[in-house]
Structure formats: C-alpha cells, structure tokens
C-alpha cells in the first residue's frame, strides 16, 4: 500500500492553523477550523506550548511546537516603558512587568538589566520556534495556512510550503492600525525569513469577521489582495453550562464582562467593575456580571442589583441585556456586536482603544478611556447609551450586517476550493 503516507482521503485539503500565545487572538478562528474539519479537511494547529490545552479543548489537534513570549509580560513591559516616558495616565505605577505585582515606584524594577538578561533567551526561543514552524510545514506540506495576525510563524510556514497565508482578524483591529505602541505581528527577532531564504510577504489574504461599519479592512487600503468576509461565530472556550444565565426575572439588565487581561496588564486601578455596578444601580439597572475570579474577589461588596454568573459563555449571557459594558477586549466587543447589544467600552490600551473607537464611530457604542471612567462618567454614558435609540439601532444594524456575511462554513468552502483548483499555491 504505497499511498499510506499520503493525505487522509481523496480531495481533502490539509490546512495548517498557526496561532499566537493568547486565546482571544485565535478563538475567533475556531469555528472556521471546525467548518474545515466538518468538510473532511485535516487541520493541525501549530501553537505555543502553553496553548496546547486550550486548542485541544476546542476539539482541534494541537502541535505545541512554537515558543512565544508571555503576552502579559510583553504588555506589562510596554506599560512600564510608557510610564518611564511619562505616558501613563494612572495615579499609581503600572504592575511589575515580570510578576504583575503592584509597584510602589518605577525604580523598583531595573528594566535595562532585565531586558539585557532576556535578549539571548528571546533570540533562542524565536530561533527554535520559527525553525520548528518551517520544519513542520515542509514535512506536512499544508495546502493553505490560516493564522492570527500576531503569529509570525503563520506566514513563515506558508512561505516554507509555498502556499497562501490567510490572516484571520480577531476583531476590529488590522494591519493598518500598527504604530503608536500597537504591534500586531511579533517582530522577527531571529531573522527567520532571511535565514530560510524566504520572502517576508504581506498576507495573501485576510479573513475579516467584522461588520463593514467597524471593519479595519473596509476602512482603508487593504494589506492583502484577497479579503474574505466572514460571519463572526462566537467561541469563548468550552462552556461549563450551555444554557445561559437562566431566568433573569424583571428589570433592565446590563451585561458587564471583565476578563482577567485588564487587571493583569494595567493593574487593579483599571478594575472598573465596582464603579460600573454602582453607576448602573443608581440608574435603576441590574447587572449581570461575568468576571475573572481574582477580579471578582477584588471587587469587594457589590450592590444587590448585581448577579454574578460563572461558566456561562458570553454569547448566551448577552441576549436579554440592554447594554454590554467591558474594557474593549475584542472577544467581548465582537460578541456584543453579534448579539446586537449596544456597548460601553472602558479601554485601557493595547488594541482596546482602536477597537472601542471603531465601535463608537459606528454608533453601536460609547467609550470612556479607562483612567477617566469615574462612577459619574460611567453613569452619564450609560444614561446616554440607553436614552438614545440611535445606539440600539446601530447595534442592531451591526448584528444584521454580521448575519448577512458568509458563514465560516462558506469561507471553509472557499479555502478548500482554492486548494482543489490549485489556486491556493502562490508560487
């Protein structure tokens, strides 16, 4: 039987996913991977070692061969440098870049010595990770590569196999937004493209799950020749309970989503949940709260109008709420857009500012920079958000736009057809 080492079965493509070290960046790719697997495609997910469990929990085959920096450490390092440069709006210093613990003074961390000590390790990790991607790609020979924009190994693996790379956006932030402290793709520390004599490309294609009004691709000239519009299908990890928060009873509810990123990256000073809950309570609103356990513990006593739910996927908590409040994380924003719920973002930095701005510009939400988000400011914003029917209409419009986009199943069909017609290979 000579064909034993060939592909699984006739006509089924091999699709390599390459993902970065942050679930929010690649969870939006999961339904596309499911759709491809449902078509019979062989899907492998090249990921950093620490993501293997999260990838497997989505029912996908993880190849934990990449090495990636701890995203929290990278982000906190950026904050520390910003603070040093006088660009830190909070009254207390940012968290310790390595441990995340509160810093009394910026002088309590010796950035230069630490950074110097990291350089060799970072180079070795980048070298090993990129080489592993090239090696795997050349042996497995994928027909197409799909990656999140942060994962440098995605385009590298595609070039190594001579196939197209599709960058799948995680939300309303794109390659055109890079700059002013926002980095989308990891830098090529080890000079991997040069070492492997591969040309560093623009993405061959972008898969865009954003409705047109907030899309970073629709906003300006595209970084890629091909843009595949896709309907966003929320996946926020395997759910513990699939039935939602249960009967909410009477009252008007807002859904407050507070993941662990904000506190871990920007410090407890950004934990706005108690202020949001108080502002909502004063407006006679009830709060459905989905928060990380550490944050929840740090909130202390909350008004009686707050109901905390755990283990409920966000997509099932949003229906029935009149607004969503969050810090502008892409997963929360996309889920709220998809559910047609107007939103208030309290962004802290990173890509949150860009994302929140796009949503506000589209009329589907409002934003208050986190350091200005006092109880009074939040209350006033919520009052306006709920008092102006235009926001609800704009949110409903985003949801309708999303619903009209091709499903991941349809995008999977396009990717598979490209391969079978031989157009997936770009050289």
């Amino acid at each position: 039987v000579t064909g034993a080492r060939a592909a699984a079965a006739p006509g089924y493509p091999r699709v390599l996913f390459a993902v970065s070290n942050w679930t929010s960046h690649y969870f939006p790719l999961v339904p596309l991977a499911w759709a491809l697997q449902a078509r019979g495609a062989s899907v492998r997910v090249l990921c950093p070692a620490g993501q293997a469990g999260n990838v497997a929990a989505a029912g996908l085959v993880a190849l934990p061969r990449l090495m990636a920096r701890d995203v929290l450490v990278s982000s906190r390092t950026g904050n520390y440098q910003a603070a040093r440069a006088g660009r830190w709006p909070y009254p207390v210093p940012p968290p310790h870049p390595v441990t995340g613990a509160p810093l009394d003074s910026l002088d309590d961390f010796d950035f230069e010595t630490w950074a110097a000590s990291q350089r060799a390790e970072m180079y070795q990790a980048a070298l090993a990770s990129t080489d592993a991607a090239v090696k795997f790609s050349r042996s497995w020979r994928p027909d197409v590569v799909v990656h999140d924009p942060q994962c440098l190994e995605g385009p590298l693996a595609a070039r190594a196999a001579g196939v197209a790379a599709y960058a799948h956006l995680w939300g309303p932030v794109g390659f055109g937004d890079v700059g002013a402290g926002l980095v989308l793709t990891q830098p090529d520390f080890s000079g991997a493209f040069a070492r492997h004599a591969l040309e560093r490309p623009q993405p061959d294609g972008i898969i865009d799950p954003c409705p047109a009004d907030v899309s970073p691709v629709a906003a300006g000239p595209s970084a890629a020749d091909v843009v595949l519009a896709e309907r966003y299908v929320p996946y926020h990890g395997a759910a513990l309970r699939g039935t939602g928060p249960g009967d909410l009873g009477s009252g008007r509810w807002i859904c407050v989503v507070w993941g662990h990123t904000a506190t871990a990256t920007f410090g407890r000073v950004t934990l706005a949940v108690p202020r949001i809950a108080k502002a909502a309570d004063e407006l006679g609103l009830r709060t459905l709260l989905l928060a990380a356990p550490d944050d929840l513990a740090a909130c202390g006593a909350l008004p009686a109008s707050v109901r905390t739910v755990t283990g409920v996927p966000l997509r099932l908590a949003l229906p029935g709420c009149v607004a969503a409040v969050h810090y502008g994380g892409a997963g929360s924003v996309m889920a709220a857009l998809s559910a047609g719920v107007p939103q208030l973002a309290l962004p802290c930095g990173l890509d949150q500012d860009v994302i929140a701005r796009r949503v506000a510009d589209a009329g589907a939400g409002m934003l208050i920079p986190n350091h200005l988000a006092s109880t009074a400011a939040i209350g006033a914003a919520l009052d306006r958000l709920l008092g102006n029917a235009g926001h609800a209409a704009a949110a409903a419009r985003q949801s309708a736009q999303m619903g009209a986009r091709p499903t991941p199943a349809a995008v999977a069909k396009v990717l598979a057809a490209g391969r079978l017609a031989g157009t997936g290979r770009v050289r």
Partner: protein
Amino acid sequence: MRVIINALVSSHLMPMVPLTWALRAAGHEVLVAGQADVIATAHAAGLATAAIGPPGSGVAQWSRPGLVTRPQLAIAQDGQEPPWEEIGARWERRVATYLDDYLDLARRWPPDLVLTDPLEFGGQVVAGVLGIPVAVHRWGPDSFTSTVQGHAARALRDLAVRAGAAYGMAAPALTLDPCPPSVQSPKLAPGQAVRFVPYNGTAELPGWLHGGRPGGRRAAICLGVWGTQTLVQEGRLPAVVRNIIEAVAAVPGLTAVFAVPAAHHDLLGPLPGGVTVAGELPVGLLLASCDLVIHHGGTGTAMTALAHGRPQLVVAQPSPVNLACAELMAACGAAVTVADPGDQADPAVLAKALERTLADDGLARAAGRVAEEIAAQPSLAQAAGQLADLAA
C-alpha cells in the same frame, strides 16, 4: 436555529461531532444534553453542554440493574425475536430517570430541533412534547436500529403521553446515515446519506506520526473502549490481544502501533520489538500513517478505516454489534475477519489472516472505492442546511 443533541453513549456522539461543528460553523446554536460520559466527550470537542438525569457516569449505567439499555439485546439472534417487552420496560425505566430534567432544560433553552442517535429515545419524546422535528443520526454500520423505532414508540407511548406528547414520541423527520449505501446493512430502512467525517477525539501527536518511518508496513491496533476496559478490569491484556500482538511479530516486515492510554501502560507486560505502544491516540489521526487496521469490530474504527481507504483485519468480539460490523466490513470487500474463538486463540491463524490482509490488493482497492464513495456523499454543510429547513 437552536438544536439540542443527545446520544446514548460517547461512541454514538463521536460520529455526530463533525455535524455539530458544521451547525455551529453555519451560525446555529447547539447544546449537547446527556449524562457524564457523553458530556465529557462533547466538552472535549469544544461544544456547549447541559447535564441531565441522575448523577453518575453513563458507563456505570451499564451495570446498574433495571436501568440498562443493552443495544445488543435488541438484535435478533439465531432467528429468535428479541424480548421486546422486557427491552421496552427497560427503555421506559431509563428514559423516565431523566425525562423531567430534559423537559426542564428544553423549557429554559427552547430548541427548534432535536438531533439524536438512534437509541436515546428521550430526545424523540421531548420533540413530541414540544411539537418540534427530530432528526436521527446513525453511528455507522448497524443492522437493527430501524426495527427498534416501532417497538420504542410503543414502549414509550404512555410515558410520552403523560409528559404531554399527545401522539407519543416524535418519529424521525429525517434519518441521517453516515455509513455509505454500498456498505450499510440491507436490514435498515434507507436513510439520507451524509458524508462520514472521522472524529475520535483529539490528542497531542507524537513527532513520529508526522515524520518519515522505517520501511515495511505498519498496522494500527485499535481495540477501542472494549480493549481498555478489559485491560483495566483484568489487569492484563485480553488473551486475544496478546495473540494479535504475537501474530504481528510473526509477519515479516510488519510493525504495529498499539494505542493505549498511558495510565495503563504498566499493565501491558513485555511486547515484541515490532510493536510500539503509543498513548491514547485517536484512530483517525493514527491511520493516516498506517497501512491497515486491526480491530475488534468497533463501528467507529471500521468507519474511520473506510474513510481513510485502509483495509481491515477484524478480530470480531462476540457481541452482536461487533459481529454485525465485521460481517458488513467483509461484505464490502475491505476486511478479512476472524470471528471464530478457536481461530482467535491461535496466533498462527491470526498471522495467516494478517498475511492475507496484506497480500490481497483487492482489499485496499475495495477500501479505496468506499473512501471515494464516502467523499462523494452530501457534505455536512448541506446536512446542516437540511436540518435548518426542517426546523424552519
């Protein structure tokens, strides 16, 4: 559309998982309802779940008197009609243990459609109560699930009527069959063919699976839940597995990979050089790098082998489900079977059977034809669309 999915056991849910992904990828919301082992399988596939029924794992039910739905009881043997009254009473007792829970779930999360395996009749009762359509998804080669529908409807009528289903449990509006028509048992009513996509869980793949491999041919030994359970219960490999391993060692140029959960590797004892033990490795991921598969007559393994176009040696274990599977695999020309316990006790006979499996190019050709037939069936995306039409 909102779809509640249920299955009697994990092995019935596994072949439904890719369709469930197709539903999610088409923008539909799905919820897998069931007991512990089914829930765990759904979770591992990234699906949302809701537990229903009394606590305790589904596997434990098999040994609980009075609650057991033994599928094999419902298979006619030696021309004897199965004891339908006894079976029906068991079905009723079992469905009654979780029906209230299930109905409560369906009220909190109202589905537009129920998708069920052919033996978890609670879904059909719930569909009857709610007045929504129900679709059945078969698990693969099977000779008896059409017959049981009528008996189940009769046995569960009173229970269903008491729960509010005036006409009893809902009859399937659609029966999806992933087993290709040329393979499926003629004893079944024809279903709507749908492409079988292998899914048997996920795993971290060992490096050798993607790399090159030594010359010669490689077999995958897959003994499924049956093999692992026997291993754990008896503390050692079943005799027939020992014999299979000895047979592999006796065939020149043949090596084998034997996938067993790492926790049980201590129980395996010494193995000949040509047999490599791997940790738990889904058969679909293993088969791409193997030339043939040796198994006990598990329908999931058989379907996966067909989808990969790999010939099979079926050392059928004496359960009617396994024996029926072995017969269907032999009938489609893709398998050599050894069903006789005396033959299974003799490594030399098994080695001869292995040599025949390797030498007969006709087996690989037949398996390849079936693989093409599977690939040509309507896609799961189409099936998802059909389900949405039912619910519309």
